């Protein structure tokens, strides 16, 4: 688990906002085609030094392909990739200052743990003593001191993953590429390792690029997340921004749980935009700025935990409330999810924290309830 407070170090780490920070890794209009299939589609991306950056997307959306282009195992069909100001075109993998932790670990089966870790250092022709010292340091870091002489096939999945990690950071590369590094681990170990990765990144001061299809993992470890879909980047932002202000229905739906209501822009009054959904009686008022015009069809997106649940109709205002019938209840221990039927074709989800241990819930199946939310609780999506 995290032993050091990482908050203070990372809190003011926002080079992407400064405007004049030098990009460390840069994808410029990169396209990768396999035959006539486009795996990565005209993609541009900037990553800063010492950033922990996550590529998040469903299986087959091109994450591994992006990483392999950065590692040098695939050449882009079009576009350029820069690393620390150097155009990487034509630079073979063994001359790139990036190291990769492979999705399959790719440990050398005929070498012991320590020889696996030493392999990269030997390529640099470091003096023997230095290599030994560094290997010991790495073994200690990943807590595998007792397994130095074992072969990979004598290790458990979690231990192998640690060897792969140790091997990829042993050379202290400028950039560490992690392709679904924790995929093979069970949930507990995965969470632990996520925090260890964050510690490690702060400690070593390297730039980490992690690929994952696990949104929780991306939100936990990353400074910024790029959400990908079918070879394109849909949104790049901090975890909180991605969650609270998604820029599209895809992102809103991909990250966490969301209620999406199709509506028309009824009026715009200063900062507040009012929407009219055909299947809701009351209007929806949203304070989040939007560029939608009156008459446009848009989607109102609101997270389940931001919808309140009560028996009484909200007193103030004529907007942001709906009468509904409880359709289904999911008890998850920490929270309960209520599925409330607000209209014939509209079921809204609301999560309520279980702050007491009462087993008997005040709200039950088929109860008539009122759903309500604040003006700043949801966002308007135009795509």
């Amino acid at each position, binding site marked *: 688990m995290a032993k050091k407070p990482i908050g203070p170090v990372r809190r003011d780490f926002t080079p992407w906002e400064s405007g004049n920070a030098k990009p460390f890794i840069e994808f410029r209009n990169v396209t990768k085609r396999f035959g006539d299939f486009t795996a990565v589609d005209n993609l541009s991306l900037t990553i800063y030094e010492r950033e922990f950056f996550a590529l998040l997307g469903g299986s087959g959306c091109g994450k591994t392909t992006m990483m392999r282009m950065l590692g040098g195992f695939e050449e882009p069909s079009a576009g350029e990739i820069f690393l620390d100001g150097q155009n990487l075109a034509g630079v073979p993998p063994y001359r790139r200052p990036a190291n990769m932790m*492979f999705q399959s670990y790719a440990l050398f*089966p005929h070498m012991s743990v320590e020889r696996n870790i030493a392999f990269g250092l030997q390529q640099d022709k470091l003096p023997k003593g230095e290599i030994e010292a560094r290997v010991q340091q790495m073994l200690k870091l990943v807590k595998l001191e007792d397994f130095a002489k074992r072969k990979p096939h004598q290790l458990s999945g979690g231990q192998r993953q640690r060897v792969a990690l140790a091997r990829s950071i042993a*050379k202290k590369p400028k950039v560490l590429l992690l392709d679904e590094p924790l995929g093979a681990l069970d949930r507990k170990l995965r969470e632990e390792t996520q925090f260890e990765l964050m510690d490690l990144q702060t400690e070593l001061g390297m730039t980490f690029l992690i690929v994952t299809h696990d949104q929780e993992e991306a939100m936990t470890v990353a400074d910024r997340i790029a959400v990908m879909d079918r070879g394109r980047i849909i949104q790049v932002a901090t975890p909180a921004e991605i969650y609270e202000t998604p820029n599209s229905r895809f992102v809103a739906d991909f990250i966490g749980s969301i209620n999406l209501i199709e509506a028309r822009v009824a009026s715009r009054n200063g900062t507040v935009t009012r929407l009219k959904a055909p299947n809701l009686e009351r209007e929806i008022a949203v304070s989040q700025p939007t560029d939608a015009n009156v008459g446009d069809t848009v989607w109102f997106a609101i997270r389940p935990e931001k919808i309140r649940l009560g028996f009484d109709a909200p007193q103030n205002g004529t907007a942001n409330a709906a009468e509904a019938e409880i359709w289904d209840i999911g008890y998850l221990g920490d929270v309960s999810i209520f599925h409330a039927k607000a209209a014939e074709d509209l079921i809204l989800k609301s999560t309520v924290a279980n702050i007491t241990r009462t087993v008997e819930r005040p709200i039950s199946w088929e109860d008539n309830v009122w759903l309500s939310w604040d003006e700043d609780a949801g966002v308007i999506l135009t795509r």
Partner: protein
Amino acid sequence: MVDTAAPGADVEAAPALKRKRSLGGWLLIAIPYAWLLFFFLAPFFIVFKISLSEIAVAIPPYLPTFDLAEGWQGLRENFAAFSFENYIWLTQDALYWKSYLSSVWIAATSTAITLVIGYPLAYGMARAPAAWRPTLLMLVILPFWTSFLIRVYAWIGILKNEGLLNQALLSIGVIDEPLTILNTNAAVYIGIVYSYLPFLVLPLYATLEKLDESLLEAASDLGCPPWKAFWKITVPLSLPGVIAGCFLVFIPAVGEFVIPDLLGGSETLMIGKTLWSEFFANRDWPVSSAVAVILLLILVVPIVLFQNQQQRASEKDA
């Protein structure tokens, strides 16, 4: 931990499997054993028995012979007549140990040459586009469709003084006079390498094809250029295939007769040839049997090594 649990589980599973073996199961095992008994072990004992006998002008040309009519007494006399004289003889005439030594030498050299030619071949096949591989594999196996004997005869046509090779070399002007290759040891090497190449390429191809390409990518990623990764990753990981292939060439090549007989010359000394002339020219069945038994003993060492290696390889895969 997985690794400590796995062997234990194996040990427990094995007896359970044994107990469950049905009559059909036993029958299935009995067939290959019966085959080995009738076609290998029994002939071997006959040969061994002849090697302890004495040459004679008779049919068959050795003494004693078993005659069941003579009963128990006759059998006892027969056994009393056995001697290791033929084996002692093998040590007294330099021809024999020279033949053995020369056979092992020729077999080892040809194995080395086969490896040098076969490794790049197998490597190229394993790295070829997946769609081509079945075709390439087919090309390696294709010669087996023609009789081995005919293929060796064909080499006579290629290697002889006015043969294809010399004509080709003369016509492009590389040489002024035909090279004498046929009936020399060089022709024997060519014949063995050609004939046994598939036996080396096939197991080697099998291991190279299994090699995980991401290992080479990982090596490259860690700063290792491809030629170095070949020596540090590909070669060590293909070693089981190399060893298997080399044994499969070396073992039959030691006792090879057809190739030295057809392509070799008078200088070519190989135990197969010695055995043949002992048997057919001298009609000395007992001595030629002794030669065969010693040949087998010499080959037991590499065969056991080969079996061990196969065992270890299959255990590793499991």
